[in-house]
């Protein structure tokens, strides 16, 4: 892989990857402007602009790939504040995330070319503008090298995605979702801003270079880290700032959900890594514990809620929360190892984290796009009204199957690799020089295993209810498969999932420069050939998905061939047997709620359940039960009420009586005069 990638590098070394990235970002902005030029024209947007941006995405991925293996390059743009022009810099970390962005964006843009419709709230040209500003700002976030540039790009990203989320703004709930999203994003942004303020420590030097050079006292460092955790955590959907995510992702058009879930959440991880592993010199061990605990809590919370959803996009959104939790846990582990100076293990944990970022980007956007196709051809989002689509839309169904296996963390696809690496990292923790942590960690590993297993449950529910069984609505009969553009997008992402799963050694070769940059170490994998994944040494653990896959395939084939060889292949079609029950119909299948019921029972305390049981005399009995998020009632509503109360107190100041107003200024005067004396 090293050879191949260096060959790629030599091929692309002619252009400086940083310039290329800036160019592509500019190109995306230009596409957006072009879309704005002809807001109403669907043909222009879908036939010209979006395919073009997909190509740009591919180029970005290629340049970023070459950039990973090149030394960092920096340049200063003639924009920004007078004493603080925009600094841009591209090092291995940025390059890796740019690679992620480019690859996913290519697939999503192609899909969007086929997905765009007339008359869905916002005109296509405007959507094109938002979409490409969104892409460009994400690229800029990744190459920003000073606080101001970073914040500008960061907030533009939030803004663009907000407009995309509310692109069908006639529906009040969508407006509400967008409002919640932007509010939390803004609060997070303020936290990040303050974090940078703490990092520059009054030196007035806002460049990342200056922050790196500074030595922070552990107090300031902790403050900065906590602010970063809050700020980026809000964007990553980490507990308890996750509430916007299950609202905003379903509200957005599916390609946007795919980008938000696949890439935007990762930019939050990028920021966290950048601040805590690059800008901050010091690491305090309990930061790691906090991040780990938050991550695990988020992962379990997310997956448990995903299991009880009945809207397919909400389900995926909650599953994104789960995956971000896993990533955050890996990040926490990295911090732990790093703070105890166990470089190689830190590198291992970091590798797992980054690998999972990459995987999640691909399979989650794949699944969101699949739901998009389903949504367009059936106009249904509720799992209770879908089913049996594998017959009507095979393309979507089979690509979605790939995504499903991948996200369930099953071999031989990519989801498994990162979870494998993560568990490996956990198995090393007993080496930590800290008794309590040693005991804590098995529990953490157990939590991760549980989350992974539950993810399998969730995905079986998702796939089984949407694509298998009998159609639950008559209208599903005329559901049509995805169009050509959409198929290309789906296929691209599915292929990526397979490749990432089958050649992990190559991917780790790509991650190597990043881990070396951030932790100073690399995991000793490449010495064992490209076929085997053996992060520490083969005695300790090794895994070869390719071999694994080939042999499974061989065994399956062998079984099939032998059966076919020795026995006849007679098949008869008949009505379903169903224990001889004659009046089988679609409503007898499990509903989504029914499928989630065991989880709801086992994890009772997670939920705030509202049940509505019909009376026995009810002619048309309706049974309703919805499980809500307790945090909403424990955190958000109290805060809102608090603000209300304070407002009530404040408004006493403005009661309309002029004498009182005069009294205020009189008293102010007297008080100040007292102060002076």
């Amino acid at each position, binding site marked *: 892989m090293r050879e191949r990638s260096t060959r790629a590098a030599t091929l692309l070394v002619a252009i400086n990857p940083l310039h290329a990235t800036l160019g592509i970002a500019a190109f995306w902005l230009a596409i957006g402007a072009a879309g704005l030029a002809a807001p109403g024209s669907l043909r222009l947007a879908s036939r010209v602009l979006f395919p073009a941006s997909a190509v740009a995405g591919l180029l970005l991925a290629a340049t970023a790939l070459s950039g990973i293996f090149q030394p960092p390059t920096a340049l200063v743009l003639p924009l920004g504040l007078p004493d603080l022009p925009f600094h841009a810099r591209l090092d291995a970390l940025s390059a890796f995330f740019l690679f992620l962005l480019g690859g996913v964006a290519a697939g999503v843009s192609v899909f969007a070319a086929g997905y765009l419709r007339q008359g869905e709230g916002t005109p296509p040209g405007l959507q094109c503008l938002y979409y490409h500003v969104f892409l460009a700002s994400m690229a800029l976030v990744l190459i920003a090298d000073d606080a101001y540039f970073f914040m500008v790009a960061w907030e533009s990203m939030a803004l663009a995605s907000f407009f995309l989320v509310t692109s069908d703004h006639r529906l009040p709930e969508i407006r509400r979702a967008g409002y919640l999203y932007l509010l939390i994003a803004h609060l997070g942004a303020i936290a990040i801003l303050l974090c940078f303020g703490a990092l520059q420590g009054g030196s007035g030097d806002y460049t990342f270079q200056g922050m790196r050079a500074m030595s922070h006292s552990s107090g300031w460092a902790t403050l900065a880290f906590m602010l970063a955790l809050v700020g980026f955590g809000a964007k990553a959907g980490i507990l308890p700032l996750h509430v916007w995510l299950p609202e905003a992702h379903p509200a957005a058009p599916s390609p946007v959900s795919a980008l938000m879930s696949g890439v935007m959440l990762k930019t939050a991880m990028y920021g966290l890594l950048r601040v805590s592993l690059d800008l901050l010199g010091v690491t305090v061990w309990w930061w790691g514990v906090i991040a780990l605990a938050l991550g695990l809590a988020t992962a379990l919370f997310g997956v448990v809620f995903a299991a009880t959803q009945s809207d397919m996009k909400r389900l995926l959104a909650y599953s994104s929360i789960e995956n971000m939790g896993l990533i955050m846990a890996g990040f926490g582990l990295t911090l732990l190892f790093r703070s105890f100076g166990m470089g190689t293990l830190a590198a291992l944990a970091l590798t797992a984290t980054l690998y999972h970022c990459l995987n999640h980007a691909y399979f989650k956007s794949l699944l969101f796009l699949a739901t998009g196709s389903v949504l367009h051809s059936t106009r249904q989002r509720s799992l209770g009204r879908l089913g049996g689509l594998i017959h009507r839309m095979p393309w979507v169904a089979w690509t979605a199957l790939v995504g499903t296996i991948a996200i369930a963390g099953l071999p031989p696809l990519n989801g498994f690799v990162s979870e494998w690496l993560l568990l490996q990292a956990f198995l090393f923790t007993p080496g930590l020089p800290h008794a309590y942590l040693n005991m804590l960690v098995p529990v953490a590993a157990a939590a991760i295993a549980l989350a992974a297993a539950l993810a399998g449950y969730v995905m079986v529910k998702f796939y089984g209810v949407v694509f298998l069984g009998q159609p639950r609505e008559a209208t599903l009969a005329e559901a049509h498969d995805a169009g050509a553009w959409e198929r290309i997008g789906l296929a691209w992402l599915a292929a990526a999932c397979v490749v990432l799963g089958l050649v992990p050694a190559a991917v780790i070769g790509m991650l190597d420069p990043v881990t070396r940059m951030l932790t100073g170490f690399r995991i000793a994998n490449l010495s064992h050939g490209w076929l085997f994944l053996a992060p520490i040494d083969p005695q300790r653990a090794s895994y070869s998905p390719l071999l694994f896959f080939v042999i499974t395939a061989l065994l399956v084939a062998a079984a099939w061939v032998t059966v076919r060889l020795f026995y006849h292949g007679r098949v008869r079609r008949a009505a379903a047997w169903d224990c001889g029950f004659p009046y089988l119909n679609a409503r007898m299948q499990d509903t989504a709620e029914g499928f989630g019921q065991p989880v709801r029972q086992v994890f009772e305390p997670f939920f705030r359940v509202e049940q509505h049981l019909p009376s026995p005399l009810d002619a048309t009995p309706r049974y309703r039960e919805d499980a809500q998020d307790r945090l909403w009632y424990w955190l958000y509503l109290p805060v809102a009420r608090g603000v209300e109360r304070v407002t009530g107190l404040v408004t006493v100041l403005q009661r*309309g009586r*002029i*004498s009182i107003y*005069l009294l205020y200024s009189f008293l102010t*005067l007297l008080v100040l005069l007292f102060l002076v*004396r």
Partner: protein
Amino acid sequence: MLEHYGPQLINLLAAVLLLLAFAMLSQRRILSLINLFAAQGFVLFLSTALVAYLTDQHHLYWSALLTLALKVVLLPWILHRLIRRLNVKWDVETLINIPTTMLVGIVLVILAFNLSLPISRLAGTMTRSTLGIALACVLLSFLMMITRSKAVPQVIGFLSMENALFFAATGAVYGMPMVIELGVALDVLVASLILGIFIFEIRERFDTLDTRHLEKLKEL
């Protein structure tokens, strides 16, 4: 001889001014309120003229005359016409009862004196002690504006505050430069004219001059 008694005379006038301020604070009838205001203006005129004579600063004569014209003649006349046109004969009822107001006033005077001590220690002028009194007058008329609920008394309070400021200027620094005196005077004049207009408008719209009816704009 006048030179000799000059400072005492000025202090005497200052005391009278303070007395008038208290009188206005405690005054219930609006007509006499206006008269008191005129009296205040007159005392102001006297003191200014005296200071002018003692320190032979010529521009102070001008401002003394200005005071006489504006604050003793013009403004009281306007106010008289105003209340005749609006035929408001009523007593001025206060938001806080008079004795309390007086007590607060005394506290304010003490505060003002304490506050002006360090300043007047620096003041090289013979009229050093007047600054404290001026400040006291400012605060007292402020208090008056707070305690009165009707529009006209508030206006009078506003104008008497202007007087006190003027007195401070003459007392402490032998008056501000002429240009500024003129500017201030002009502002005061225009202000009182506009206030007159407003009082008519308010009377017309709300058919009362009680500012307690001007409480529609507020936060709920």
